[in-house]
């Protein structure tokens, strides 16, 4: 690789070694692919009809509805979580101690619990209230998923907003105070507009993670993309098996999340260019660049 400062410019022996390594790695990769092909073929997974049945119009419609359900839950939860997270970030920056404690408690609690448990919790509490009243469930599966996603993501987003506020140069708030602004004027006029803008890439990246997490709505029967995908093998008169179904939904999900992560990455690059111009004289140290850029992707949970 060029541009890798960890490694000296290669001499003839080094170049030969790299060539040998490349050859061996390529052979190994080809062997693995060959073995996979054998496995697929031997189990009849490559028969055309198993894959073409996925593109049957009824199947596509069935899957498309699931994808729309996933996007609907992601957009709803994303927007509500952003608003709630913003509110909690403000509470955490408040001067009143009880308000701050409440916000810290909320954030720490909901960041530390598995999302899946929260989905179950919201859903079963909703169901038990409905049973107690003898009526329909208040939330149902869609809102149960959304509420759980909001509980978790508002906690994460409020930390992102807070980090944005803290990343601002203290000169900004000092200047605001110097011109006689009150605390809230300073926050809303000077600090927050800059902090929020600075955090837009991180927020978009969190939305990519959230979109991945909508799949967990599966467990309470929300008919989202993965649930529909899992049903494809048993849907109608189809030759599709689990392998095709899960691999296909994995690929679609990959494209969706990868595109969102790519957007976050581009926003971040644009921002760091803008910020670097201002900070150029302060930070002469450039980071090591190992050639391959960051791999696009969302968070782990």
């Amino acid at each position, binding site marked *: 690789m060029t541009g890798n400062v960890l490694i000296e410019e290669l001499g003839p022996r080094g170049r030969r070694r790299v060539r040998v390594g490349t050859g061996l790695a390529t052979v190994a990769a080809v062997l693995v692919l060959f073995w996979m092909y054998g496995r697929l073929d031997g189990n009849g997974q490559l028969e055309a009809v198993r894959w073409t049945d996925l593109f049957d119009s009824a199947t596509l419609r069935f899957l498309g509805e699931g994808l729309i359900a996933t996007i*609907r839950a992601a957009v709803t939860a994303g*927007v*509500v979580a952003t608003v709630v997270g913003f509110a909690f970030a403000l509470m955490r920056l408040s001067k009143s101690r009880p308000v701050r404690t409440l916000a810290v408690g909320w954030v720490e609690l909901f960041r530390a619990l598995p999302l899946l448990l929260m989905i179950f919790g919201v859903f079963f509490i909703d169901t038990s209230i409905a049973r107690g009243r003898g009526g329909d469930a208040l939330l149902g599966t869609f809102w149960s998923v*959304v509420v759980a996603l909001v509980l978790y993501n508002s906690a994460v987003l409020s930390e992102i907003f807070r980090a944005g506020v803290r990343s601002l140069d203290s000169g900004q708030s000092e200047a605001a105070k110097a011109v006689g602004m009150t605390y809230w004027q300073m926050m809303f006029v000077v600090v*927050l507009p800059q902090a929020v803008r600075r955090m837009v890439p991180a927020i978009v990246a969190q939305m990519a993670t959230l979109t991945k997490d909508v799949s967990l709505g599966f467990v309470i029967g929300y008919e989202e993309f993965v649930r529909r995908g899992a049903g494809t093998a048993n849907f109608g008169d189809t030759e599709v098996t689990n392998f095709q179904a899960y691999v296909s939904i994995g690929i679609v999900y990959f494209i969706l999340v990868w595109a969102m992560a790519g957007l976050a990455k581009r926003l971040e690059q644009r921002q760091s260019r803008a910020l670097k111009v201002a900070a150029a004289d302060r930070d002469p140290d450039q980071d090591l660049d190992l050639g391959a850029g960051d791999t696009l992707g969302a968070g782990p949970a």
Partner: protein
Amino acid sequence: MKRMIRIPLLLLAFAMFVAACGDDDDTSSDDGTGGETPSGETLKVGTKYDQPLFGVNTPDGVVGFDAEIARFIADELGMEVAFQEAVSANRETFLENGTVDMVVATYTINDERKEQVDFAGPYYIAGQDIMVEAGNPKGITGIDDLDSADIKTCTVEGSTSLANLNSMAPDAAVTTFDTYSKCADAMGQGRVDAVTTDNVILLGLADESDGAYELVENPFTDEPYGIGVAKGSELRCQINEILQAAYDDGTWAQIYEDTVGAVASVTPDPPAIDNEGC
């Protein structure tokens, strides 16, 4: 300052808008004539559209055991049948508001439901059964065989079937998934030896497996299926008479063999009809 507050509100409104779009699951067309007795020439029947062997909506109309029973009853009453999808959650409502005249939709008779609607029949006794791989390699004949650490049994977490299994076979080695079709897949891959739940669901899975799975056909619980009609409707006793006649002349058995019989080898005896109040 004002703008900063307005943005979250706008976002919230947008979220509600997005959430409201497509919140229309399960709404079926309601022609709301509101009559308690069959009006004119058509008998409006609520049935399942997604229960293999019992009620499935196909391009050629609704087929299955429930659908054929409904057609037979309509015929005997001298009326045309008009099907309407009934899902578990709306069966009572449909009868109460006259959307349908009768419900034949894998509808279990119980006391809670009897407070809202009347039941003709029962016309079939469902029950929890066991599905195994074709040829029954482990020789499972009933619930007692599942009560062993050597036989892996699959069912759905949180289901009545799991509760029944736990109480009737406390030593069973249980695997749970969120759907019965995953249990069937797990059995196909040799991860479990048996799947247990209502025989109606198992029959559907066996039907879809193209002969890979079969039922033990030894149910160990009783769930009588009835034909729901509006409370106080005179239809109930009429239907009971028609059913009794179908039992006696073999029509019922014929319908069973033509539909469920595709998967089940044993045709059961028809259940005794509850004629109280007729």
